[in-house]
């Protein structure tokens, strides 16, 4: 009977056998007591491994976020093999048709000449749109993945922001806004590396990104040293440049509110970044 007790408790016996165990437990006190002890042992065992402390919960949240980011990366640019082949075939057909058309109207030589000319760089507005878009996408995959009950852990955030950016937390502390800082870290998106601060208030999540900006690669001269704002999908992006940094604020707030918040948060960040740049010479 003792051998069958575990199978009975696991609900793995046939109905008839189950019934006979049940009947036996009805009159055998020893087995009934043993059954209760085993149930209790399982309950305690389960309790031992399912109780969580704060550290465990935080570690789990970080693990969950990490997997979510990996899944987002996996889902993002991946194109199925079938679609890839179809796109390649369509491109080839299109190229063939165009080539034929040029040949027919006798413009092949003209086309050959023009193909020798280097492709001009995209206009500054296109580059600006691309950096704003990356900031929004990073906001979506990173900032919006934090659960609503995420709490700020100063020590960890200071560690994650590295000594270079961690003093920013004190600057924000000294100048509180209605938005609460919930997270800060260094993160990457599409080969861009950002210091990322995440704020929350009234159900809105706001990201402030600070990116080291290569003046040779980006169209700095075309952007004034004042806050510019663009929108991308449902998000507003306010941005401003310093000598070698670009600062973004991304949110789903209405345009006016996003700009107002940028006017509150950017001066703190700008002051800190400019000091950083001065120290770096």
């Amino acid at each position, binding site marked *: 009977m003792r*051998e069958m007790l575990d199978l009975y408790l696991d609900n793995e016996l046939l109905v008839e056998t189950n019934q006979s165990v049940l009947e036996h437990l009805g009159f055998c006190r020893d087995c009934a007591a043993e059954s209760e002890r085993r149930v209790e042992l399982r309950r*305690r*065992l389960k309790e*031992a491994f399912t109780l969580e402390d704060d550290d465990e919960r935080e570690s789990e949240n970080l693990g969950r976020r*990490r997997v979510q980011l990996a899944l987002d990366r996996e889902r993002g640019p991946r194109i199925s093999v079938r679609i890839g082949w179809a796109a390649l075939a369509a491109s080839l057909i299109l190229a063939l048709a165009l080539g034929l058309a040029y040949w027919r109207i006798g413009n092949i030589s003209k086309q050959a000449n023009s193909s020798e000319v280097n492709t001009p760089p995209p206009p500054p507005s296109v580059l600006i749109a691309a950096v704003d878009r990356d900031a929004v996408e990073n906001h979506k995959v990173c900032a919006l993945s934090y659960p609503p009950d995420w709490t700020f852990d100063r020590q960890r955030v200071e560690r994650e922001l590295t000594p270079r950016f961690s003093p920013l937390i004190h600057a924000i502390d000294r100048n509180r806004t209605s938005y609460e800082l919930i997270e800060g870290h260094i993160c990457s998106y599409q080969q861009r590396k950002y210091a990322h601060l995440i704020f929350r208030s009234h159900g809105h999540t706001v990201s402030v990104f600070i990116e080291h900006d290569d003046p040779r690669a980006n169209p700095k001269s075309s952007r004034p040293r004042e806050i510019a704002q663009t929108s991308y999908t449902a998000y507003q992006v306010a941005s401003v440049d310093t000598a070698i940094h670009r600062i973004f604020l991304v949110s789903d707030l209405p345009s006016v509110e996003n700009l107002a918040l940028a006017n509150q948060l950017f001066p703190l960040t700008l002051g800190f970044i400019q000091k950083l740049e001065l120290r770096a010479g």
Partner: protein
Amino acid sequence: MATSRKEDFDRLAFAHFRELRRVALRVCEDRETADDLVQETYLRAWRSFDKFEPGTNCRAWLFRIFFYVRSEYRKSQARQPLVFSLDYVKESTLPSQTNTSLDLTLEEIKRAFAELPEPFRIAVMLSDIEGLKYREIAEVLNVPAGTVMSRLSRGRRMLRAKLTTLASRNDEPCSVETSKKSGRI
């Protein structure tokens, strides 16, 4: 269509993140490895989500992928395959009865459980902590159902033996300070 697949995946598979990570933390050497393997499990689950049959146990499916990923990881680490004699403990020495009032702390129960040899520990964990059926455990571990039953039976007996030993040690007279430290009073 893609959004719907993503939503289904989050609802069916990502919902089991906690259980999967809990199992990973119990069977991996360290937290970092556990998190790496959980991430790889989810990436593979996403890639083959089309093969998952709705209505079947998604958690067991994830566990199965996890144990497969883990076995690959162990091979890649060029570790010796797990060699353990299932006969190393004589059946007769294992108690068929729970000779303890379970006056033990959760920490002591955890420690006793952690000392079980791996095949038994995993079987007991999947059954008693995660609540999988024998058939599901057999699929997850890719072993016959009879092996699962045998591992469960021995694993539980070993655990009972360890707990009995611990409980009898606790019954020995000790100072108030020691008891306080252990969290029993």
